Each structure stands twice: as structure tokens, then as C-alpha cells.
């Protein structure tokens, strides 16, 4: 599970569209294990930062209300084909991951 992410980024009419999905359980901490009846500890991504050539373009702050395997999409200006796009995340249990992609 750890550190899995898919990123697609492409340029259309001078704007770059980014679509990304991070594979993460996003547990709210409110669910209970069906067998043992014990609460499943909260485990969700709190922060995601997106960088274009090292410059921050979007910062997401998430709570447990974001769906499992969160998908998000956004658009920004000023990129060229071949530019680097880096997305990194941190969750509430201190785990982290990041992935890099080229804009096409």
C-alpha cells in the first residue's frame, strides 16, 4: 500500500490539468472492526503538497472526510512540456510518500 500514487498531467490551452490519485485507506477512526468490535484507529492523509519545478502550486489539507484512495484534480498556468511535477503527502500516523511525474 505504502507510497503508491498515480499522476497524470497534461497541457491544454496553456493550462496544465493535473489528476492524481493516492492509494491510502483514509480511516476516519469512527469505524469498528466487524469481528472484534474494536474501533479501527484513524489513519488519513492530512497534507498534500504539489510542486511544479520546485515551486508550490497547491497545498491540500484533508480531514477524515476525504474518500478512501483520494483522487483530486486541479489546473494551473505557466508550465511547459517536460516540466517536473512533484506530489508529496503526510498522514496522521507520520507516514509519508511522494511521487514525481513529467508534464506532457
Amino acid at each position: 500500500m505504502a507510497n503508491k500514487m498515480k499522476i497524470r498531467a497534461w497541457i491544454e490551452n496553456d493550462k496544465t490539468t493535473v489528476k492524481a490519485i493516492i492509494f491510502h485507506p483514509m480511516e476516519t477512526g469512527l469505524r469498528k472492526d466487524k469481528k472484534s468490535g474494536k474501533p479501527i484507529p484513524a489513519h488519513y492523509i492530512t497534507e498534500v503538497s504539489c510542486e511544479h519545478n520546485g515551486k508550490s502550486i497547491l497545498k491540500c489539507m484533508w480531514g477524515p472526510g476525504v474518500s478512501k484512495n483520494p483522487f483530486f484534480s486541479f489546473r494551473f498556468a505557466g508550465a511547459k512540456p517536460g516540466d517536473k511535477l512533484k506530489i508529496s503527502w503526510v498522514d496522521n500516523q507520520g507516514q509519508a510518500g511522494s511521487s514525481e511525474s513529467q508534464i506532457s
Partner: protein
Amino acid sequence: MLNNRRTFLKAGMATGTLAIATGAGLLTPRSVLAAWPEKAFKTKKYPAALQALTGTDQLTDSDTIVVKAPDIAENGAVVSVTVTTSLPKVENISMFVPVNAFPLSASFDMSTTTDGFITGRIKMAKTSDVIAVVKADGKLYTAKKTVKVTLGGCGG
């Protein structure tokens, strides 16, 4: 008598600490508060969560914000929401679901080159409004859309 005095002092101290904490939270500029706004995410009531995030509950309804979400969501665990706005200088877009255990779902800080457009997938406990709050040029605007949820997506 002595006992009462002790209790009184303790209560006073507790309130004092809380006041200082709140004051510090409100005084810290948004840019410094780049770290995850824990208080806003852990607040369980909608207007309070909004207040914790933005420091105010004064919002202006705006036609320039479009919240795109399904009319009926069969599965509340995955509700795709798109917020688009034509407002200039968008600084932040946040999504709230008032009926959820934690009303603040997601908050996106935009940079100057980022468009006023964001898509995300959020959980919804039951039928409710999805409220988008957009901060543009220092002001707060809002728009909402009702989503019918047939199967709740927040555990249980």
C-alpha cells in the same frame, strides 16, 4: 470554604488557558499557519469548524462559484465534488459537509498560478448540502449544493 476557593481558582485557570490558546490561534497569520489546521478539522459542528478555519463565519453568497456534485449519490463513501469559481485571486477553496462527524472535509490552498478549479472525492454521512467556501482577495464567498445520499459513507 477552602475547597470552594480551590475549585474557583482551578476553573479560572482553565478558562484563562483556553482564552490564550484561542487568542493565539486567531492572531497567527494564515500564511504562518501553513501547518495542518487541526482544530478546524476536529471541530464537530459546521459553523464552529468554519470559524476555526477562517476566523469568521461571515460569508457572502456568490454566483461565481459552481459546486458540481451528483444530485443523488448512491454511495456516500465516494462523492465526487468539483468546485469552480471565476473569482480572481483565489487563495483557498474548502469543502464542508455539515452532517458529517467532522464537517470540514478538505481545504485547498491555491497559489497565484492555480486556477479556481478543484475536484475531490469526499465522504458524506447522509443527505446534506455540500458547502464550498472560497477565499479570494481576502474575502470569503460561498455556494452550496444538496446531495441526496442513499448509503452513508462514514462508517457505522
